[in-house]
């Protein structure tokens, strides 16, 4: 068992992978990579459990969205705190969107026993994702700190 997380913010630099291509060739590998990051950061207690939950959700309906974005997500007993893991791919990874592969991928993880309040931060993030300017800023972000800063300022301080 990994150590529980201490920084409970939605995302930290350790949860950003700007070179997803280097670690994953397809959707499944990409999801595994992002789940692994969440595990390493102490936010997920069980990689396999989390993977199973995300795949189950993905099987219902692909989470790729128009505009090069993939949002694999799940509520899972394996999640300690609401967590966002961000991955960026220059080649693109197919998440089933009609207009092509995803350039940016968000793994959104929520505890499954949560009631309301602490999930609102995820709701706020989801709402920001719709905005083209936010997506573009993420695509153009220079490093992991930039990504974290961008998300925190847009989502957590609102």
């Amino acid at each position, binding site marked *: 068992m990994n150590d529980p997380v201490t920084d409970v913010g939605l995302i930290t630099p350790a949860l950003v992978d700007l070179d997803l291509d280097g670690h994953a060739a397809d959707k499944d590998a990409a999801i595994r990579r992002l789940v692994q990051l969440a595990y390493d950061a102490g936010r997920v207690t069980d990689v396999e459990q989390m993977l199973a939950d995300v795949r189950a*959700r993905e099987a*219902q*309906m692909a*989470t790729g*969205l*128009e505009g090069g974005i993939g*949002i694999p*997500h*799940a*509520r899972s007993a394996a999640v300690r705190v609401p967590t966002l893991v961000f991955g960026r791919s220059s080649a693109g990874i197919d998440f089933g969107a009609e207009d092509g592969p995803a350039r940016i991928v968000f793994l*959104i993880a*929520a505890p499954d026993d*949560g*009631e*309301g*309040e602490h*999930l*609102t931060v*995820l*709701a*706020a993030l*989801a*709402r*920001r*994702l*719709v*905005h083209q300017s936010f997506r573009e800023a993420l695509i153009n972000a220079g490093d992991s700190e930039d990504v974290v800063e961008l998300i925190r300022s847009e989502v957590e301080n609102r």
Partner: protein
Amino acid sequence: MKFVAVTSCPTGIAHTYMAAEALEQAARDAGHEIQVETQGAGGLQALDQSVIDAADAVIFAADVEVRGRDRFAGKPTVTAPVKRAINGAAAIVEEAVQAARSGVVTAAAPAGSSRGLTTKVDHDAGVGTRVRQWLMTGVSYMIPFVAAGGILIAFGFMIARFAGGDNGAIEVTKIPIADLIKHFDATSGMQWAALLFQVGVAAFGFLVPALAGFIAFGIADRPGIAPGFVGGALAGVVGAGFLGGIVAGFLGGFVALWVSRWRVPKAVASIMPVVLIPLVATLITGGLMIVVLGRPLSWVTEKLTAGLNNMSGGSLILLGVVLGLMMAFDMGGPVNKVAYTFATTGLTAAAIASHGTQLTVMAAVMAAGMTPPLGLALATVVRKELFTEPEQENGKAAWLLGASFITEGAIPFAAADPLRVIPSIMVGSGITGGLVAAFGSELAAPHGGIWVTPLISGIPGYLFAILVGTGVTAALVVLAKSVRRTEVAEDEVSVSGAHAATNMATV
């Protein structure tokens, strides 16, 4: 415009909120107001009922069952997968605008105008508007069947008139479908006429089921369709006509709504919308239509027939008036059927040979059955603004249908606004029936409208009676619909059902 929306998705942490944001953005960009209820894992902030009541249309962007759907009952609704709301929110908002425009009776005050009043009036106005919207939903889906079926039948008569001579329009109905299947002859005009006629009749078979099915759909959404359609079909079986169809629609819709509110174990909940609600609601609706509605209807039919038989010895003009009133009352329903059957059973060989009064009765019945669609078609031309867009479209087809003695052409108007339309067309048909009887025109054909004109004696009086009835019908409909309008303008408070009823009493 003002919209409300519900977004939801299986997990409830991502798509629900993205769709909400996208819809809010798209609505704002298009200059509309929208409030979104996100039914996600982040807790449910239920929309205020007053906000829902004030909305012009509802958008459901949901991949799972919308919670508390009945709060939105009776509103024009657009339904889309949650992903579509994220990728194409602007298009969905545009669909909602269209739904709001076509779903609301133009003569009625928009639902939003009743905001800020006392609860009681607000509630009254809400019910009146809702009932009109439910009826309009059913009518707008029924109109294609009326238009397609009616025009095909009319063309069938028309072709038969030219291909088969004076009796063509009568002979064409005697060619059975089995005949067409076995040896359809593409070189025979009568065969083509019969083909058009039979397809038209098949389309008419859906008229009442579609009306009932989509009224129920308006009330209870998808779970209402099966009970509504089946109830509507059974309204046809028990001979209840389109008024029976309206009953079936409301019955099916509210039963489905009621069943959908049952608290069921989780294991059953997943099959609720697809299996359980339609199953239970269809059984209840269909059962009631047969058991409760069937017997009193056959009793009414019996009594009415006996009443007509008693009258046949008396004044022919009075009989013509009564038959005219009956023809227009329910257009294909039990009362109409009694009058029509009374006339056609009089067409015995003996009566035709001796030129009995039975032939005048038939002429009166046919003329009286032609004026409702004709009068309403005229009204849509004279005072277009009193009718909704679908009604205006139907008005164009109604000319041909009326001329061909297809009284059903008036049903969409009557179903959308029964309290104003039915009395108006009854008076017009009553006058026509009385006039034809007074002129003593004779007819030995049971159907065909203007396509059997050569078989009519006393044509000038016959046509005059139809013209008068058409004019009276149009005038009364316009009057009945305008009275409500001025009333609403004077007293901006409500368009409640109570007001409508009072108006009718004074007309």
